[in-house]
């Protein structure tokens, strides 16, 4: 698998490289690079030709002017050489010079150019001296004429002839410069001979000027044909024609190259079209496979989503189960703690009931004994009254006096008055103890703690309030607003417990100021009663309100509250299929309302 993949990769790379090389090859072959050097080369040839014609122009100027600057005849040579070198370097790159035709054309041009340069060089030399002599000629002749004019004693006719001969010779020479013919040359030779003859006839001072003139005319005779010949040779040299030939060859090669370029252009076009088609095909193919991949991808995504949803559902179920379990655990814990609390209370109740029972007996006999004591003392009083009445009958006055004294010292009269009071207060006290014990018994109902029974709620509330009185009396005034209640089927001790919790909470809600706790009862309808415990204490903040029935929730300092009171109460009321509501306003007070069914449904009683 891996091997085939590598092989296909290799194949792909190879074909890509192959296609790219073909493309590059065709591009290079069809590129206009050649025409770039073509225009360059063409331009160089044009410039060379331009220099050549400038050169010729300067030659024309040189042959007609006297004081000529020959620099312009030097520059074209330098420039043409430079241009030719540039041309050659371009053409060497183009490999044109390889064909015999090209080599021939180069050689032809170079030969013509060298010859021309050579001829121009000679032309310069000869032309310079020729122009000089031609310019000097009139002055030289005039000098001789002037000298002749100064000869006073000579033969006038002979002098005139010599003068005319000199003029003729000079003019012939000048004409010769314009129209170089053999006739003129012969004329000049004749003239020179005449001048030589004339010289002999003239005085010695004429010899030097005449020699000078002769020399210069001889020079003209010698140099003018040479200059003319050089000019002809220069004119005959086909430098421009060779340049034209090279230009034509360049054009021809360029046309050929252009044709080749066009052909390759066409190939390039065809090849590019094929490539584009191939690319299009591949694009379509790619798109299609992309579609397939997308489809599969989408399916995968869907499957994945489903899986995720399932996982989420499972997770949720698990979470729910876990939450339920947690709740159950919490409930168990709560129940457990409530059970513990109940047990504690129950045992406390039993203890209280036991004590009450035990205290009941002494109370009984103390009470009955106090009754008997009262009766007995009344009888004693009667007896003592009889004794006092009998006093005057006592004989001895001293005895009588000591009795009176003793009686007043003892304050018998006061004692006699006070004892019945003491007895009645004791009776009262003992009856109150009895009441307390009864209340304790009522509250705990230890005798029938877990039994459902029909109970008078007011009785339970009262005894509960009595028990809690010590907690309340310093904090709040208790107001009872009892309605008429039927007996209610309930677990009285537990209901008492609820009332106890509510009242104690209400007391705790009081601030520094003494408040009022109002306990109301009433019938909601035939089978429902309600009990309200309202206070005007600090109230419960809204955020705490929903937590107050949670187990272990407390706002009291650690150690003072278990946080179980209300939760326990809630549990108790729920067991009674009743409801407990709270309405609270911070700073105004809190009202707890407990609603209980008068009769318990059979199912609830277990």
């Amino acid at each position: 698998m891996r091997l085939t993949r590598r092989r296909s990769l290799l194949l792909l790379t190879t074909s890509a490289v192959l296609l790219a090389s073909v493309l590059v090859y065709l591009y290079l072959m069809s590129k206009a690079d050649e025409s770039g050097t073509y225009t360059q080369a063409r331009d160089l040839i044009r410039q060379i030709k331009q220099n050549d014609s400038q050169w010729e122009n300067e030659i024309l100027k040189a042959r007609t002017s006297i004081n000529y600057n020959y620099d312009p005849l030097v520059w074209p040579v330098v420039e043409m050489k430079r241009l030719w070198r540039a041309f050659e370097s371009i053409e060497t790159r183009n490999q044109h010079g390889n064909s015999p035709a090209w080599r021939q054309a180069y050689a032809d041009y170079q030969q013509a150019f060298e010859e021309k340069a050579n001829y121009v060089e000679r032309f310069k030399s000869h032309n310079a001296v020729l122009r000089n002599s031609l310019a000097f000629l009139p002055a030289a002749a005039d000098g001789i004429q002037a000298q002749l004019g100064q000869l006073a004693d000579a033969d006038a006719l002979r002098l005139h002839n010599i003068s005319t001969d000199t003029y003729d010779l000079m003019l012939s020479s000048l004409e010769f410069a314009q129209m170089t013919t053999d006739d003129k040359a012969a004329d000049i030779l004749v003239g020179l001979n005449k001048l030589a003859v004339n010289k002999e006839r003239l005085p010695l001072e004429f010899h030097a000027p005449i020699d000078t003139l002769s020399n210069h005319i001889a020079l003209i005779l010698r140099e003018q044909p040479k200059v003319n010949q050089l000019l002809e040779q220069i004119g005959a040299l086909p430098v421009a024609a060779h340049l034209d030939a090279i230009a034509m060859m360049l054009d021809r090669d360029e046309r050929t190259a252009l044709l080749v370029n066009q052909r390759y252009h066409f190939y390039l076009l065809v090849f590019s079209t094929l490539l584009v088609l191939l690319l299009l095909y591949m694009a379509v193919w790619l798109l299609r496979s992309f579609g397939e991949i997308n489809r599969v991808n989408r399916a995968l995504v869907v499957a994945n989503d489903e899986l995720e949803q399932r996982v989420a559902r499972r997770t949720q179920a698990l979470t729910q189960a876990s939450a339920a379990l947690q709740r159950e655990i919490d409930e168990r814990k709560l129940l457990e703690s409530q059970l513990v609390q109940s047990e504690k209370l129950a045992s406390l109740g039993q203890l209280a009931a036991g004590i009450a029972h035990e205290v009941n007996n002494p109370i009984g006999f103390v009470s009955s004994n106090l009754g008997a004591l009262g009766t007995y003392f009344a009888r004693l009083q009667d007896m003592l009254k009889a004794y006092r009445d009998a006093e005057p009958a006592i004989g001895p006055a001293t005895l009588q006096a000591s009795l009176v004294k003793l009686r007043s010292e003892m304050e018998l009269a006061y004692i006699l008055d006070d004892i019945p009071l003491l007895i009645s207060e004791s009776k009262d006290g003992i009856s109150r103890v009895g009441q307390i014990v009864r209340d304790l018994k009522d509250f705990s109902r230890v005798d029938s703690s877990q039994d459902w029974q029909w109970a008078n709620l007011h009785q339970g509330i009262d005894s509960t309030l009595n028990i809690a009185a010590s907690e309340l009396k310093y904090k709040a005034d208790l107001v009872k607003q009892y309605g008429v209640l039927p007996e209610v089927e309930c677990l009285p001790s537990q209901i008492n417990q609820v009332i106890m919790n509510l009242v104690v909470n209400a007391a705790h809600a009081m601030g520094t100021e003494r408040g009022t706790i109002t306990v109301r009862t009433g019938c909601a309808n035939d089978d429902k009663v309600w009990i309200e415990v309202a206070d005007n204490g600090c109230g419960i903040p809204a955020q705490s309100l929903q937590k107050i029935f949670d187990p272990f929730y407390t706002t009291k300092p650690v150690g003072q509250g278990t946080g179980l009171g209300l939760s326990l109460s809630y549990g108790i009321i729920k067991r009674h299929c009743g409801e407990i509501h709270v309405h609270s306003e911070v700073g105004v007070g809190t009202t707890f309302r407990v609603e209980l069914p008068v009769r318990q449904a059979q199912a609830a009683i277990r």
Partner: protein
Amino acid sequence: MPIHPPFRTCAGVLLLLVPSIGLAQAIGGPLTPLPAVPALAPERVELGRKLFNDPRLSSNASLACASCHRLDQGGADGQVRSLGVDGKPLPVNTPSVFNASLNFRQFWDGRAQTLEEQAHLVVQRPGEMGSDWQVVVQRIAADPSYRAGFAKAYGKAVDEHTLQDALATFQRTLLTPDSRFDRYLQGDTEILSKDEKYGYARFQEYGCIACHQGVNIGGNMLQKFGVLGDFFADRGNPTPADLGRFNVTGDEEDRHVFKVPSLRNVAVTAPYFHDGSAPTLEAAVDVMFRYQLGRTPSTDDKALIIQFLKTLTGEWEGKPL
């Protein structure tokens, strides 16, 4: 041709003057001032200067270019013929190196087309520096400062071509601008005295200017020495060097043909001619009148011309030559 003489005179004068005057105005003066010193790569110029003064270019390390082309002596050495590496006189007089780059060819016989070629020939010519380029390259390349210099200036090692290029580049900077005559040409017409201006006029009238023209006042053409007289017969003791360009081309027409030398700084580059036969300007001007112009000037005219020639001395490094 029966034409009346006076008329013919007029016709002849017209024939000659009309085209010459007309064209003389059209092409401007035949002499032009020196161009500015070209701005060339300073490292190459410096290398050239060093090489120019380096005797290692000669076979026995006794001669540098500067030994004969002394820049403090008008670019030559004042000798009739300088002594070569073997202590024997060279065939021809040493021409000035100043403004040589403006000459259309180098050497008296115009053998070299370029300064590079000139350097090439001088170094290996037996009588002159008598060396061999291979040896020169070896010697120069052995010098670390040259090696570094060439690497910096040319980006490559020392070789024959870079050596010659450096030498030629240096020589292209050896121009002597600001001669009084150049300043005259540039428009400062007051700088020449009346006599000097007359001298210039004579220089043109006698036809000196036919050959000594252009930017270098000569140096742009070849000319036969002895157009109107046989200089060599009169001088005697013919030498092979007297054949001039004939020695290069073998063409009979080139016998006694030489490059027309530049007249720039002519007053400070005596002796004159290829053979150094004219020790003074006067002697040289005399020879020129006799053999080249075929004319006899008045003493005054000659003196004026010589005065003019003295205005052609330029400056180098800010000092007159």
